[in-house]
């Protein structure tokens, strides 16, 4: 067989990238013209999330039967209420011994149940804005929902990350992809920047970076123990992006001390000083999402004609990264794709690939244990 399918991570000097910026609920799209140029921080759509609801036991408060609560209402269903406002009052006996209930929140009286005597109060809506995230232009509009922003950019896909969307200047800080990022590297100069490290960083480095105001760290590997120390808990399933730790982290290779792929490091270093959009959100389940570094580039119209290539096919000469022990993290070229399954050390018979490592050594390993470095 001449080729095989395998997924991979994209690291490319130039690509056309589209990002969907959709509201969680229907709302208003702020930009209504296709082709409009946008900056990363421009708001492209707005909406209001329905406020939180509060069940309020009116029958209990008034001490009446559930069927009588409706007659005691002082506010219409759907009407506005303010905190402390009387929303229901019983008639009492001869105008005396009245029982009343006051609203505990500002909002609306959404509904009242004549079966349970429970009112549902809703807090005021919460405004939600969606920004463009990347510099680019609007290429598609979803009425009432959002837009698609397109950009020509350099693009680095990481394997795992934490923290949400952020933006800053690319700031390489180590001289070599195998160099470890240390506490001493984090200086006040790093504030507001996307710091490009090398092979590894500890929880102390992450902590200092967050304190210094670093926007993001891009690094080859981290230890799981350090990550736990930094965020304060063990990650169960890999759904990240909502950590409130004051820093976005993008790991390009994996867990452990692993040098960043030279290609990734060179690309990021060549972009020193450029503005980048970074997102650490990772979801390795039900709609995979990998962390990313997007560096928009200004091009002439001719340069923008970039063809999409079919990705995911492994052929002789394809650049791959080994993603399992014993050669974890090494980069090489596919030198042979034997079609028949072969027995490996575990005695399992699997489909294999021969990879020529950068030092010239050849290794035979399961095809499942390599990933493409896509361009």
């Amino acid at each position, binding site marked *: 067989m001449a080729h095989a399918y395998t997924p991979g991570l994209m690291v490319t000097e130039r690509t056309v990238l589209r990002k969907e910026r959709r509201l*969680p609920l*229907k709302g208003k799209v702020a930009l209504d013209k296709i082709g409009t140029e946008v900056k990363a921080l421009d708001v492209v759509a707005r909406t209001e999330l329905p406020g939180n609801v509060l069940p309020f036991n009116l029958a209990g408060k008034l001490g009446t039967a559930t069927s009588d609560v409706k007659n005691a209402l002082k506010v219409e269903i759907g009407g506005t209420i303010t905190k402390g406002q009387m929303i229901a009052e019983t008639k009492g006996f001869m105008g005396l011994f009245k029982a009343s209930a006051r609203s505990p929140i500002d909002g609306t009286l959404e509904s009242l149940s004549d079966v349970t005597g429970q009112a549902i109060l809703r807090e005021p809506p919460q405004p939600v804005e969606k920004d463009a995230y990347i510099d680019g232009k609007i290429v598609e509009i979803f009425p009432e929902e959002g837009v698609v922003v397109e950009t020509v950019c350099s693009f680095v896909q990481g394997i795992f990350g934490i923290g949400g969307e952020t933006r800053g200047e690319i700031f390489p800080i180590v001289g070599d992809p195998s160099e470890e990022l240390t506490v001493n590297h984090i200086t006040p100069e790093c504030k507001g920047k996307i710091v490009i490290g090398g092979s590894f960083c500890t929880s102390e480095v992450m902590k200092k970076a967050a304190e210094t105001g670093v926007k993001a760290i891009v690094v080859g590997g981290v230890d799981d123990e350090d990550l736990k120390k930094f965020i304060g808990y063990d*990650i169960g399933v890999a759904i990240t992006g909502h950590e409130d730790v004051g820093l976005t982290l993008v790991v390009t290779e*994996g867990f452990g001390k692993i040098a960043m792929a030279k290609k990734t490091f060179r690309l990021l270093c060549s972009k020193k000083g450029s503005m980048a959009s970074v997102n650490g959100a990772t979801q390795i389940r*039900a*709609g995979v999402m990998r962390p990313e570094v997007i560096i928009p580039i200004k091009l002439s119209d001719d340069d923008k004609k970039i063809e999409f290539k079919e990705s995911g096919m492994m052929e002789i000469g394809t650049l791959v990264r080994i993603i399992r022990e014993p050669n974890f993290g090494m980069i090489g070229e596919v030198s042979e794709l034997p079609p028949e399954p072969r027995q490996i050390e575990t005695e399992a018979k699997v489909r294999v690939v021969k990879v020529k490592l950068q030092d010239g050594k050849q290794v035979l390993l399961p095809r499942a244990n390599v990933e493409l470095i896509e361009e």
Partner: protein
Amino acid sequence: MKPKEQIKTILATDCGSTTTKAILIQKDDKVGRYRLIVRGEAPTTVESPFEDVTIGVLNSVKEVEELVDRKILENDKIIKDRSESEGVDIYISTSSAGGGLQMMVAGVVKNMTAESAARAALGAGSIVMDVIATNDKRLPHQRIERIRNLRPDMILLSGGIDGGTTKHVAELAELIAAADPKPRFGSTFKLPVIFAGNKDARGMVEERLKEKTELFIVDNLRPILERENLKPARDKIHDLFMEHVMAQAPGYRKLMSWTDVSIMPTPGAVGLLIETVAKQENIQVIGVDIGGATTDVFSVFVDKTEKKPVFNRTVSANLGMSYSISNVMAEAGIPNIMRWVPFKMDEKDLRNRIRNKMIRPTTIPQTLEELKVEQAIAREALRLAFIQHKFMAVGLKGVQQERTISDAFDQAATGVSLVDMMNLNMLIGSGGVLSHAPRRAQSALMMIDAFLPEGVTLLAVDSIFMMPHLGVLSTVHPEAATEVFDNDCLIRLGHCIAPVEKKKKKPGDSCLHIKFESGREESVEFGTLKLFEFPEGKKEKAVLYPDRNFDLGAGFGKEIETVLEGGVVGLIVDTRGRRPFEIAKTDEERINKLSAWNKALNIYPDER
């Protein structure tokens, strides 16, 4: 779809959370039966950058094509006009890609209708994200917040026996309406809600939920206290899964148009097969399917109160070997995983290896050391999933049992787990780590360590992980499914004999004596694991004599006469104890013990 008699070539796929597997089944006219021909696999492509499940399906079918040298695809379409050299007669599929079906259930009383609702949802192959009940000790606003945050694919609302409470059912409906839940896929769709509760509350529920949700009403799943009627709710869940959930997932519409029958959720298909095995052979069975994201446990045990076999299924979301592997670490804890690793290992190293598997879920162990670590984690995933299953597989709670005088000394409380390991006849393992273990003895030992079978239990494993395919095939062509299951799928590993001790015993104490019909006799002392040669297909009568402090099902010290069956592993005698089963705490002692057990069963090539 072609008439059954004309079906000779069957293509089946299962889109798992990590891998899409394809198998080709053909009728061998010479012997007149269906056989598995070949299997192919490829990474599942429900996710970015492809976001189209059919690409993974095509890739796995391409591998089948290449391995069997038969043309099945033309212009990325399955050829349905079969000839001698190309095409297939039918194409069927199961799926759990995209996280499967995720549900919330609600009922009035946590241990009664809410539990029945959870059973109905689990039985339909869904993951139950949360159970809301009026007595779940949460405040109303906390329940509402939970519904809003979890964003389930659908909600099953039950509550009240027919003629019972309506107020509490209305209250639950009000909570759901107030939460105004939105589905995961498709922001413009209304969330499907199934009401399967008190028929007198239907109007109230309709009034509260009709506008805000896509409401469906089916028969009450617990019409009277003593009876569950789960089928209507299960069937509706399955229909809605196809129409609303799967259809929204990337590429499913296309896949649905390719298949000749509805796509089934993977756990639903496996459960169907396990249930069939139990029924056909009239035995009590436990089946387990350990996947990348979830571990599903199925059991058929006789309910002693109802005096009939009861099928139970649990889907342990977040206990799996790839996407969920880190959660196994978080739930089991490092020491529990480490206790199965037969060499010295740094905790930091173990943590990083587990994380690396999580972020690159499709990789496979290449070195023996990696294999041992993965099989250590699998034991914990299986153990935890089984604990959850035992907790869920219980008789009906809250039922007033009628008893005769003969039951007076056998009174069990209602809601006791139906799982009775001493009466278990067969334990079947499936899923990557069990089906693809390089040596079958490894699967046997993983299952023994995790499930701790008692008495005499036959161990079996799905040869190459095709139970989901055969489950869905059994709905359209039961004969083909049975033939392939018997001949190519179910590998018998052999019987496991495990006596249960009365109190803690010392290694070396006298424990078990076996007398075979052939005259051969064997004795096994306490605290060991032994393997006796007993080839596949061989059956022999034997009398098992436990020591007076040990029980094999007939009582302490009482012998049992049984027919022992061999398998690809042999006859395993496990006298390591069950009360409880313990592994030494010190590194050296632990490694010595594990190595000895591994040697006894010839588990790894480096431990001869």
